[in-house]
């Protein structure tokens, strides 16, 4: 096993442990962790299976295998960011709806208090 393989292996294992720990502490929803676990698995496979990266790069017509790796990693990050943008958009929308609902309910409660106060006053006089 070459130095770089050992290094990749260690990095992959540490990543997997970090993700597992985050799930255990409930800081990461399982739904999202799957994607990250998949990433770690891909890292592991690439680290252990030496020939794979060469094959992929020759398949894509990329001369230097490391460039193929960078490109794939970048693409992956790109789609992850896009995914998170979508999530943020949805959350923003939901937050907005909550705020609007809150404003309407807040007004209703205030009105109720006011009418109660008026009724109390009427009784008193």
């Amino acid at each position, binding site marked *: 096993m070459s130095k770089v393989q050992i290094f990749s292996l260690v990095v992959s294992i540490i990543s997997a442990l970090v993700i597992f720990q985050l799930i255990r502490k409930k800081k990461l929803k399982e739904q999202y962790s799957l994607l990250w676990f998949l990433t770690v698995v891909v890292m592991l496979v690439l680290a252990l299976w030496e020939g794979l990266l060469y094959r992929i790069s020759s398949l894509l017509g990329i001369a230097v295998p490391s460039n193929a790796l960078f490109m794939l990693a970048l693409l992956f990050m790109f789609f992850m960011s896009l995914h998170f943008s979508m999530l943020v958009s949805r959350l923003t929308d939901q937050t*907005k709806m909550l*705020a*609007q609902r*809150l404003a*309407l309910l*807040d*007004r209703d409660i*205030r009105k109720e208090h006011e009418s109660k106060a008026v009724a109390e006053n009427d009784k008193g006089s």
Partner: protein
Amino acid sequence: MTAPRILVIIPAHNEADSLADVIADIRSALECGIVVVDDGSTDHTARIAIEQGVELLSLPFNLGIGSTMQTGFQFAFREEYDIAVQTDGDGQHDASYIPKLIEPILLGESDFVVGSRYLSDTNYSGPRGRRAGTAMFSRILSLMVGQRLTDATSGFRAANKALIAQFAHDYPRDYPEVETLLVAHMAHFRVREIPVAMRQRGGGRSSINKFRSVYYVVKVLLALLVVASRRRSPRAE
């Protein structure tokens, strides 16, 4: 037939200085419901609204003008108002024009009426960049809807009941003026402009500063493209 119920929506973000005058202005102009939508103000905008005895919807944090207006439309929809008028919290819009603004809706001639600063010899002279932007958007929008529009960015408008329902359900988050006109047109609402005069801004600051104007233009153009790319629904009779 019972008289149509009219709601004036005042979106307000830190408008404590001008809000009381704006409300007094509206009250002297017509008989109507008034709701202040406080967009997460840090001053005492909400207190002034309560003191003035108008309806108050207080957003817990700043949502931007579009979502603030939408909250007002949601209130109008829930309370079954017939017409919703939107005006600014900074006293820029002259409330004495509101009766003229709602007249085409009362007559059933129009569904969405926009007060235009540029339709006649009104002496409004806003900042130059803003004027150029408005002219550009108005021209693009005119081409898209096949009708001459002169003030696409005016926030002084009146919507009928059907449009209130639509806006309560869906309204752009920020810089909504131009986009909503196209949305209304696509949904077969009849849009009309009437000439109004606007005052120079009172208290408060325009939400559009130099750094944001680029975002403004790009966002609106993109929004127009998106709206136009949807198929126009067949007219429901």
